[in-house]
């Protein structure tokens, strides 16, 4: 398949999902609201002495992002499944890999939108210096989103047609995405502690390794995941 055609199809698939979200507001508002509720609940728990607080806030933030982001991932294939366009999606003259990358991209955008709200709110609510290294934080957030979305889209495609898809998605996604969440949370913790050294770089490397692993796996197995 020509690269130009694949890129064009990829852009159309991303725009289609974005337009659908703006028209139907299916996932993002619920995701944002759940994220804010979680920030409130977890923020209350971070009312600790400064040294203890800096150790736990990053984990709490990434937990909130994970649970709220699961809502967006759950809705990745809902429109196609419920509105009868699943076959149309499968009949697109593009490789399944392009559909996978488009779904990962749209979920990354959703998670980025979520983080743009949650990180400043959580920074204020917990009085933690999240924005001490803004560029490094943006890099960790982007890498975390990519890894989480890559594994999330595979699991979401698998559970899309099942009756208990919501609970199954969360049940499977949490253990499978643990390496990504752990690396992102630890890298963020070291940023908050102003300890951007060798250990921080190790967590970033682990994050990149899992992104490469999950994305490659996704490109290889997505064809089987969307079979009907």
């Amino acid at each position, binding site marked *: 398949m020509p690269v130009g055609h694949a890129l064009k199809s990829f852009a159309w698939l991303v725009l289609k999902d974005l337009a659908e979200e703006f028209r139907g507001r299916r996932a993002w508002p619920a995701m944002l609201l759940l994220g804010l509720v979680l920030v409130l609940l977890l923020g209350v728990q971070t009312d600790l002495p400064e040294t203890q607080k800096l150790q736990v806030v990053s984990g709490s933030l990434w937990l909130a992002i994970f649970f709220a982001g699961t809502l967006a991932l759950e809705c990745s294939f809902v429109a196609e499944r419920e509105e009868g366009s699943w076959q149309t999606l499968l009949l697109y003259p593009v490789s399944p890999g392009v559909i996978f990358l488009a779904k990962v991209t749209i979920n990354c955008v959703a998670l980025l939108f979520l983080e743009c709200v949650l990180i400043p709110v959580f920074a204020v609510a917990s009085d933690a210096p999240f924005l001490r290294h803004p560029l490094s934080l943006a890099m960790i957030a982007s890498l975390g989103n990519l890894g989480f979305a890559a*594994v999330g889209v595979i*699991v979401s495609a698998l559970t899309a047609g099942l009756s208990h898809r919501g609970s199954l998605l969360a049940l499977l996604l949490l253990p499978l995405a643990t*390496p990504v969440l752990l690396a992102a949370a630890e890298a963020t913790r070291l940023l908050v502690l102003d300890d951007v050294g060798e250990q921080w770089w190790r967590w970033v490397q*682990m994050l990149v390794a899992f992104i490469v692993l999950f994305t490659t796996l996704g490109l290889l197995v997505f064809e089987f995941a969307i079979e009907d």
Partner: protein
Amino acid sequence: MRDHTILAIVVPCVLLTALLLIFWIAPTEATMGQVQKILYLHVSVAWCGLAGCLTMGVCGTIYLARRRLVWDHAARAAAEVGWLCSSLTLVTGSLWAHDAWGVWWTWEPRLTSSFVLWLIYAGMFVVRGGIDDPHRRARTAALLSVVAICDVPLVIVATRWFRGVHPVSPEMDPGMRAVLVTAVLSFTVLFGLIAFQRGRQLDLADRVAELEAGQDVDYDAPTYGA
């Protein structure tokens, strides 16, 4: 059938030899005393837990390529035995940690990644239980098992990579090392046999269900032990 009978006699003998070696022949460790003997069981079941995950992933991949349910039965059997070994790893590790570190559990990298592996196994069973169509269930489980393999390297490198406190290749008396290797081999054969028999049982149950439903059974399809 004869091969299975021989195996059923040989495996308990090998296992009994390993247990005798562990409790009577292996030297007693100076610091931890008798508690150190947990190590022989712990390392063996931990290896079998990881091997179960790898086998599950390989069988899942072959199912995706060939679409024969016999490979799904093999993957399910490997998953069940792997989950059992993974559970035993956590229990024996916890017993060892209580004596060595003074706590039942700590969020050490290898312990955490082993617990994640246990959760992945458990999640797979929930998914399998939620899908009725055998081929859809097999496809979903196969894909998940391929993704689950990603946790295996993490369990292996966790302690070295993140400088955890879990022992990695500790200095060991040659006698202890020989007993450890024997124990690992014995438990591998034992759990391999259990997985094989479980896979065979699943395969036969599937064929009986097909016959009861009045479906045509593909007698040329590959089966266990054939």
